[in-house]
C-alpha cells in the first residue's frame, strides 16, 4: 500500500499478505499463507479452490471472526480488528438460521442487536422477504421452510444490516443443482439492485463464472492466491456461450491441479 496522499475513496477490502496458522493435535497447520487481494467497490469476487484450502478462513478474517497472525486487513482504509457489523454482513453455508425464531425474527436479529424499534425492524424485514417470494412465510420456523427458502432468509438477514460489503461462504453449497442455479440468477438480480461489494466463496466453477467479476483461484493448503481471472461478460450470463466454456476449461485446469494436490496426488 502506498502511503502519503490519501486517495478519494480507499478500496472497500484490502488484504495485505495475510496468513493464518492453526494449532491442531497433530501439529500446526498453515491454513492461509500471504494472501493479498484488493476488492474494488461494487465488485463481485469469488474465491475458488479445493476444499480445505482456507477460502472460508480468508472470509472469516475479512469478517473479523478470525484474527490473522500475519499481514493486515483494511476495510475502507481502516484496519479491521473484530467484526464490523456496520460494514460487513455474512452469509454462511448452512444458513445458520436460529431454529427458535420465525423467518421474520431471523431477519430482524441484526437490527435487534442495533437496538432498532420492533415496528421499524419488522417493516424492513417484510420489505426484504416480500420480493424474495417469502411473504406468507414470515411466521414459519426454519424447519418448516425448504432449503432454498432458508438460504433466502439467511441472505435477507444479511441484507437487513444494509452493509456495503457482503461476504458469502458457499451459501448455496447445500442446495441441489437446479435450486443452486436459480438462486445464482436471483443473486445477480439482488446484487444489481443493492450495489454491494461481494466476496463469495465457492468450489463450483459454474457458480463462480455465473456470478463473478473476478475469480481468485486458491492453491491447496496452505491457501495462497494461484491466479486471478477477470470475467468480463455481461449479466445475465449465458452459461453455454463459447467464452464461458473456454473460461471454464481454463479454470478447471487450475482447480484440478490444486484438488489433486489436496488429495495427495490421487483422486
Amino acid at each position, binding site marked *: 500500500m502506498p502511503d502519503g496522499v490519501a486517495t478519494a475513496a480507499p478500496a472497500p477490502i484490502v488484504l495485505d499478505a495475510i496468513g493464518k496458522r492453526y494449532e491442531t493435535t497433530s501439529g500446526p497447520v498453515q491454513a492461509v499463507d500471504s494472501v493479498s487481494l484488493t476488492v474494488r467497490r461494487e465488485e463481485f469476487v469469488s474465491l475458488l479452490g479445493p476444499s480445505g484450502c482456507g477460502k472460508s478462513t480468508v472470509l472469516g478474517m475479512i*469478517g*473479523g*471472526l478470525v484474527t490473522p497472525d500475519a499481514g493486515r486487513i483494511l476495510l475502507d482504509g481502516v484496519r479491521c480488528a473484530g*467484526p464490523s*457489523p*456496520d460494514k*460487513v*454482513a*455474512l452469509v*454462511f453455508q*448452512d444458513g*445458520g438460521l*436460529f*431454529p*427458535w425464531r420465525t423467518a421474520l425474527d431471523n431477519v430482524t*436479529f*441484526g437490527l435487534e*442487536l*442495533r437496538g432498532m424499534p420492533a415496528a421499524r425492524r419488522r417493516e424492513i424485514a417484510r420489505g426484504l422477504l416480500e420480493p424474495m417470494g417469502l411473504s406468507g412465510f414470515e411466521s414459519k*420456523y*426454519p*424447519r418448516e421452510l425448504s432449503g432454498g427458502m432458508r438460504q433466502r432468509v439467511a441472505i435477507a438477514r444479511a441484507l437487513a*444490516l444494509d452493509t456495503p460489503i457482503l461476504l458469502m461462504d458457499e451459501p448455496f453449497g447445500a442446495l441441489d443443482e437446479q435450486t443452486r442455479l436459480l438462486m445464482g440468477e436471483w443473486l445477480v438480480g439482488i446484487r444489481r439492485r443493492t450495489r454491494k461489494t461481494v466476496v463469495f466463496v465457492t468450489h463450483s466453477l459454474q457458480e463462480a463464472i455465473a456470478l463473478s467479476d473476478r475469480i481468485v483461484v486458491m492453491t491447496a493448503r496452505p491457501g495462497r492466491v494461484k491466479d486471478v481471472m477477470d470475467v468480463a461478460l455481461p449479466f445475465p450470463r449465458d452459461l453455454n456461450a463459447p467464452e464461458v466454456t473456454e473460461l471454464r476449461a481454463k479454470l478447471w485446469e487450475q482447480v484440478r491441479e490444486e484438488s489433486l494436490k489436496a488429495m495427495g496426488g490421487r483422486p
Partner: protein
Amino acid sequence: MKVWVWRLGIAVAALGLWEAVAAPLNPLFYVRPTALPGALVAMWQVPELPPLAEHVWLTLREIGAAYLLAVAAGLWLGFLLGLRRTVGRVYEPLLAALYAVPSVVWYPSLMLFFGLGPASKIAFGVLLGFFPIVVSVLAGIRQVPETLVTVARSMGAGPWTVFHKVMLPAMASTMVGGLRAGLALSVVGVLVGEILGSRAGVGYVINYAYGLMMTREYAVLAVLVAAGVLALDLAGALAEARVKRWAG
C-alpha cells in the same frame, strides 16, 4: 384424545386388579382400593399426630426450598464448568464419578451436619436434584451449534448477547429436561429424607403408619404421594413440551 381414554382404562383396570387380588387376603397386609377413601378421612386427624395438612404443607415447603436451591446450584455450577473450558476439564470427571455414587450413602452425614429437622431433608433434596441439572447444562452448552454463535458475533453481539440470545435458547430443550428430572429427584430426596429420620412431614407419617402396622393409612399416604408426584411431573412435561415446541 384416544390416548387419554386408553390411559384412563389402564388406570381403572389396575385398580380393579388390585381390588380383586386384595379382597380375599388379610386386610392388615393387603389394603383394597375401596377402603382408601374412608382411611383418608380417618387419617386427616390421627389423634396422636398434628393434622395431616400440616405435614403435607411442611413437605411441600421442603421440596420447594430444595428444588430452588438445586436449580440455583445446578445452573451456577453447570455454567461455570461449561463456559470455562479449563475448569470444566478439571472438574467434570469428578462430577461424573460423584453422580455414579448412590446418593443415599451421603444421607447419614447430612443428618449429622444439618440435624433431624427440615434442613437435612432440604439438603438431601438439593443433592439429588442438583446432578441432572448440572449434567443437562453441560450437555446443553456442548450442543449449541458453533455457526449460530458465529452468526451472532458477526453481527456485533458481545459475550452477554451471545449468551442470552443464542446459547440459552439453543440449550433450552436440553436444559428443561434436566430441570424436570431435577424436580422429580428433589421430591424423592425430601421424602426419603423424611422416611429415614424425621419428626414431621409426609415421609414421617408414612414411616409412623408403617411402624404401627396402620396399613390402610400407609396405603392412603402412598397413593397420595404418587398422585402428587404425578401431577407435578405432568406440569413439568407440559412445560417441557412447550419449551421444545418453541426452541425447535
